[in-house]
């Protein structure tokens, strides 16, 4: 069949030129406004996919997001999107889709063998076997199971689409633009309330587009269209269509996904694919409607068996008949409307089978079987007949089933509220403990008929107006007839020979629930997990209540006694790409660039990520082919003459106030109140648990003004900690903190010629001589003919060194000036590697040593914890385990064979000791090749380190099959007396 032969009238679709699309490599036509499901049905294509476990043929079961069966792979190449529900996919020109989860053609899936073996593949069978021989699980059984499981295939290519996020604020969020939602939006919108109306369909109206009802004298679809037109003219109303509210979070925050371009051909636009909205709503009104459910009877899973409301939706909205002969199986009055509508459309209705004994007063001329049931069906790839318990065979290629309607309470449960069973409706309705400021209206709240839903939406809006003191006069609620939806609960047809499906996708049948009950998996959660009921991509939207009812039957209990399961976000699945938004690739996180970055990139700089920063690692010069050549040159030239390096990334905190000195005494382990103005001191900061938090130098710029530096890595956490100390611990101190990290471009200038280089920069009358500006001095001055600057005489390299800071805008120019004036000394810029080499040569601890597991004593700085005052961390630093005799101590290491390279992360053991944890003496923290000493050197922690100078141990790295004999030495490899930096 082809050429939309099942399109029996226009429905709501304009009769425009057809568009073509491809399913399983075959071309079909459709109309604008079709879903993929309606288009396939229009072309008579009933077989759409295969089920998860038994690979049974699957057709189209629903007409909405609840679809368990009609899943396809949409689009091709990197755009391929597995597990896409055909029922909510808008057809566009050139759409390509294919069926999934089968080997061989869709009609002859090899994996359907599972169906024949189903008696041995009952719920949980895999927990009881595949255990012998032991090694076979991973090698044999599991790969087979994994290959058979899963559904669609990822392309395994980078997602080529872009995704956006956004944030919306509203006074009233209305979820769902069906009868209740539209009625409420009109009332609130006309009263001037700031409304956000969200609907997941591309044609708002919900049920109004699926039925042949009248409202205020118009067709319901026309009324919906008019309502939408009015709402879009109101400035206080914003409407999002193609948007699903997928989750409810704390304090009125809602997650929503807008499908911006999923309905457009690939490559035809420059819009993002989707926008993930975070909605902040003062209050919300949930008008999410209801979802129909099936009845359990033998072989109730064949293509052609669908929900009665869905069959009606295809007919009324899309003008498509899902079959040539329709039979209806129902336990409620609503199912009858399907028969009525098909008969009115001229489609043959072969039977209405109602489980109840008394027929509703419906004017219809078809065979009616009251008090009867369908107990079996026939048709391998598509339905051709059904058998009733009374023995009759009814020919039909579409069986429309209605087991009743379940309110879409999902969003009411996202904060773990439990819905309540309503016997009259035979359904769960929202519980009483809804998310804060949420109301519900319409079918979701059990207002099943149109008149009630319209009125409920209107009344909800009125109550919100009243509660917010809005006295606007608005027109009355729209009027419609109240249709009947009476139901007598009926769940499963007993004594069917064939298996009766509950979860169509995961292949869970009533037998599985019987087995799980038998084996003791009786709580709802156990049964769900044991059988996988409701765990498929549809999350049991059509099967949960039916499954619960069957479980109640088996246990001989009522449904409320049996329990319920609540729903978690998301309401429908959300692409991971949408949740990530723009944060991917290079834009995963912001990049911070120091002021010299552009300069460095013109000077052969290679860059490396250091936290959020990108820093120059080294500067390659012509002829250098290996990074070590560059680094060795930078180190040697700095130690020989002078080098300069951007150290802006260190955290800088302005500490001001009358009590600033006292404050620093409390946050630093050592004392700062004694520091003189114009001087700098090294500071050690502890956490309250006594371990080292951070270190750095702090300068006293004025009596009440200090400038603290932190490590690059801890700049943010130290600032936060100090604000805690200031606000929460010592609020009476007059002390104020401002981050100055970004303000200053700060460069280290190190080496014996550093003073001479700076002499060329500093303005008169500044005296930069050793006498005028000794070690650990700081000053405010101007450089380069008037640029304000700060100068610190501090040294990380161990050389005579300075750090010069200018406002960041001059950072680039200062690098130029250093390079220009440095020519006279063959000055070199040096990068992070050379900085690291020099600090290891000097024995300074850095990140690898200050890893949060280190005490002051480990670093040999135990005496810095002042005995004269309290400070953060002091008391707990005296705990016995932090002060043991065999504690690790930071020392230096050199290889016995100077040709060998040390390795950070190697563990120290005594020679001859076994390579076990019991032999473990410590580990190497940092290593470098020292061009000054022409050997590999290392820093590390080892027990009793200070007492073991000159001892030989093995640095073992079993990861590398490596053991290197090393000698324990002082960590101060270069200038141990510190003569250079004071020169």
């Amino acid at each position: 069949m082809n050429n939309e032969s099942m399109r029996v009238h226009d429905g709501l679709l304009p009769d425009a030129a057809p568009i073509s699309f491809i399913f399983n490599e075959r071309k079909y036509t459709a109309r604008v406004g079709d879903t993929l499901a309606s288009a396939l049905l229009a072309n008579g294509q009933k077989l759409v996919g295969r089920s998860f476990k038994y690979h049974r043929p699957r057709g189209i079961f629903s007409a909405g997001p609840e679809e368990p069966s009609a899943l396809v792979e949409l689009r091709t190449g990197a755009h391929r999107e597995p597990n896409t529900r055909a029922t909510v996919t808008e057809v566009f020109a050139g759409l390509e889709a294919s069926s999934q989860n089968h080997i061989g053609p869709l009609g002859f899936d090899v994996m359907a063998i599972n169906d024949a073996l189903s008696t041995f593949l009952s719920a949980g069978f895999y927990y009881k076997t595949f255990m012998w021989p032991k090694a076979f699980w991973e090698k044999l059984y599991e790969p087979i199971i994994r290959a058979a499981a899963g559904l669609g295939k990822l392309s395994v290519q980078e997602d080529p689409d872009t995704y956006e996020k956004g944030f919306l604020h509203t006074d009233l969020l209305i979820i769902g633009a069906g009868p209740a939602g539209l009625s409420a939006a009109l009332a609130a919108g006309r009263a001037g309330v700031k409304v956000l109306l969200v609907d997941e369909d591309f044609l708002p109206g919900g049920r109004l587009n699926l039925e042949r009802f009248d409202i205020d004298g118009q067709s319901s679809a026309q009324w919906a269209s008019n309502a939408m037109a009015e709402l879009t003219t109101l400035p206080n109303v914003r409407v999002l269509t193609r948007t699903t509210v997928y989750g409810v979070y704390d304090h009125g925050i809602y997650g929503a996904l807008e499908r911006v371009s999923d309905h457009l051909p690939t490559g035809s636009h420059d819009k993002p694919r989707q926008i993930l909205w975070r909605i902040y709503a003062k209050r919300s009104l949930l008008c999410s409607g209801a979802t129909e459910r099936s009845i359990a009877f033998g072989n109730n899973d064949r293509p052609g068996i669908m929900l009665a409301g869905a069959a009606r939706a295809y007919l009324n909205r899309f003008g498509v008949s899902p079959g040539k002969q329709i039979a209806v199986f129902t336990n409620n009055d609503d199912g009858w409307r399907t028969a009525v509508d098909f008969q009115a459309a001229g489609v043959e209705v072969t039977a209405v089978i109602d489980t109840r004994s008394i027929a509703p007063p419906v004017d219809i001329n078809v065979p009616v079987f009251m008090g009867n049931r369908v107990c079996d069906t026939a048709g391998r790839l598509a339905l051709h007949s059904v058998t009733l318990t009374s023995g009759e065979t009814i020919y039909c290629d579409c069986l429309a089933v209605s087991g009743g309607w379940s309110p879409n309470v999902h969003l009411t449960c996202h904060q773990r509220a439990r819905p309540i069973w309503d016997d009259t409706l035979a359904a769960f309705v929202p519980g009483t403990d809804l998310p804060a400021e949420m109301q519900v209206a319409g079918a979701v709240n059990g207002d099943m008929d149109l008149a009630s839903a319209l009125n409920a939406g209107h009344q909800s809006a009125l109550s919100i107006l009243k509660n917010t003191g809005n006295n606007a006069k608005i027109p009355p609620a729209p009027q419609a007839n109240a249709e009947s939806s009476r139901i007598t609960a009926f769940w499963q047809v007993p004594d069917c020979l064939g298996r009766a499906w509950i979860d169509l996708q995961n292949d869970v049948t009533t037998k599985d629930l019987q087995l799980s009950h038998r084996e003791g998996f009786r709580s709802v959660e156990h049964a769900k997990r044991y059988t996988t009921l409701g765990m498929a991509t549809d999350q049991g939207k059509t099967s949960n209540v039916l499954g619960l009812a069957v479980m109640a039957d088996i246990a001989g209990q009522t449904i409320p006694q049996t329990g319920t399961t609540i729903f978690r976000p998301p309401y429908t699945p959300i692409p991971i790409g949408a949740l990530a938004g723009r944060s991917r690739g290079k834009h995963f996180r912001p990049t911070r660039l120091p002021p010299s970055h552009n300069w460095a990139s013109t000077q052969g700089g290679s860059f490396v990520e250091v936290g959020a920063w990108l820093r120059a690692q080294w500067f390659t010069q012509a002829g250098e082919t290996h990074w070590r050549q560059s680094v060795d040159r930078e180190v040697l030239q700095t130690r020989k003459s002078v080098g300069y390096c951007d150290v802006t990334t260190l955290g800088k905190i302005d500490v001001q106030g009358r009590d600033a000195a006292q404050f620093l005494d409390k946050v630093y382990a050592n004392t700062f109140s004694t520091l003189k103005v114009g001087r700098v001191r090294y500071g050690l900061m502890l956490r309250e648990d006594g371990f080292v938090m951070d270190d750095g130098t702090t300068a006293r710029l004025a009596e009440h003004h200090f400038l603290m530096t932190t490590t690059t890595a801890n700049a943010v956490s130290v600032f936060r900690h100090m604000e805690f100390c200031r606000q929460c611990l010592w609020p009476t101190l007059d002390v104020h903190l401002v981050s100055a990290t970004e303000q200053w471009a700060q460069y280290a200038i190190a080496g014996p010629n550093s003073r001479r280089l700076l002499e060329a920069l500093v303005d008169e009358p500044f005296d930069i001589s050793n006498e005028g500006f000794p070690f650990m001095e700081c000053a405010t001055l101007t450089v380069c003919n008037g640029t304000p600057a700060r100068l610190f005489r501090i040294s990380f390299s161990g050389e005579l060194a300075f750090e010069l800071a200018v406002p960041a805008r001059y950072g680039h120019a200062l690098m130029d000036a250093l390079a220009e004036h440095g020519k006279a000394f063959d000055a070199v810029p040096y990068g992070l590697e050379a900085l690291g080499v020099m600090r290891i040569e000097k024995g300074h601890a850095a990140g690898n040593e200050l890893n949060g597991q280190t005490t002051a004593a480990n670093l040999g700085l135990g005496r810095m914890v002042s005995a004269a005052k309290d400070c953060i961390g002091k008391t707990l630093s005296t705990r016995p385990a932090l002060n043991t005799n065999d504690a690790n101590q930071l020392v230096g290491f050199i290889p016995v064979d100077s040709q060998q390279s040390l390795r950070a992360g190697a563990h120290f053991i005594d020679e001859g000791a076994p390579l076990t944890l019991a032999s473990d003496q410590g580990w190497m923290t940092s290593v470098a090749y020292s061009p000054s000493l022409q050997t590999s050197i290392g820093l590390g922690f080892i027990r009793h380190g200070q007492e073991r100078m000159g001892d030989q141990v093995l640095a073992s790295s079993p990861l590398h099959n490596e053991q290197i004999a090393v000698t324990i030495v002082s960590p101060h490899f270069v200038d141990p007396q510190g003569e250079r930096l004071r020169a």
Partner: protein
Amino acid sequence: MRYSAFQIFKQGLTGNKHWPKTWRTPDPAQQYDVIIVGGGGHGLATAHYLAKEHGITNVAVLEKGWLGGGNIGRNTTIIRSNYLLPENEPFYELSMKLWEGLEQDINYNAMVSQRGIINLYHSDSQRDAYVRRGNAMLMAGADAVLLDREGVRAQYPFLDFDNARFPIRGGLWQPRAGTVRHDAVAWGYAHAADSRGVDIIQNCEVNGFIMEDGKCVGVNSTRGSIRAKKVAVCVAGSSGRVMSMAGLRLPIESHVLQAFVSEGLKPVIPGVITYGAGHFYISQSDKGGLVFGGDIDGYNSYAQRGNLPTVEDVCEGGMAMMPVIGRARLLRMWGGIMDMSMDGSPFIDHTSIPGLYFNGGWCYGGFKATPASGWCYAHLIATEQPHETAKGMRLDRFKSGAVMDERGAGAQPNLH
């Protein structure tokens, strides 16, 4: 009943109508040798090893809801023994060895699947830390392999190697790590303990401890008073609530950790992989779902649900590491309550009250520890001595300073 392929065949032929219950549903007796409070993975494992290894079978496991309903039923199913500290690594390696023989031990297929885990590194200092860790693992008898960038690419060619904000430089690979079907662990231990005579009592909430002469001699519960020589609490997630009934304050905060699963997909991710420049870890279940997670939300919570910023942060990490998952859809998210301890490590210890034992503080690493936790807790309860591999897991270690701080984050639970 002993489970086997033959049993499946035999039962299948008779319509699967004669399978027995997986465990009995006994009423509580008046007196037990040991009461285990908490029918999660750790509690059930403890019961199993008490019975099997120590011959103590007069045991009740009391579960307030349905067994396995706590964190054993809501985690990302990863097992690994890639710890750094000597107080931790031997314990987790014991656990790994127990996982390796679990199914034969308990006659239940929990689908222990040693698919390997790779922790990516993105900088030299991360690499150095992983070298230190990998060496510690090898010295403790575990397995570890340091991969460079090409070694990672050989296993996971579809990671973002070329356009990443934080380029992948390599990874620490533990081949024996992997995943386990989490619910089946609870069911399997319950099945095995039950078959040795342990009473598993569901829907039985403990609401007080019976104290006599300063000793704990039983519990009051929603199913009456039940006495025992020893009461062993094992209720991670609710540790604070339960132990406060004994008047004890703990070095624990309760935090929510969210986990996520995608729709089912054909196999794409062979093992477990964790991102080193953000909070993200992922594997693929046998059913085809991508199972992934990230960091805790970061605030105290008993609500078993989290919030959006964490969800988005996790997915951002995922897309940054492997942009091929962009079109996979997140299907379900859920939250579990974690005992976050002050140093990120757990407790298996006596309490200051004779007869009352405590197991908890597993942070978000409790699943992989299930067998060893049960093994060592059973050892402590049966012998009164801590097991060799769990000696450091003491409640008083913050007093002594002998902390087990793998991350070096200090006494702030949400940083571990």
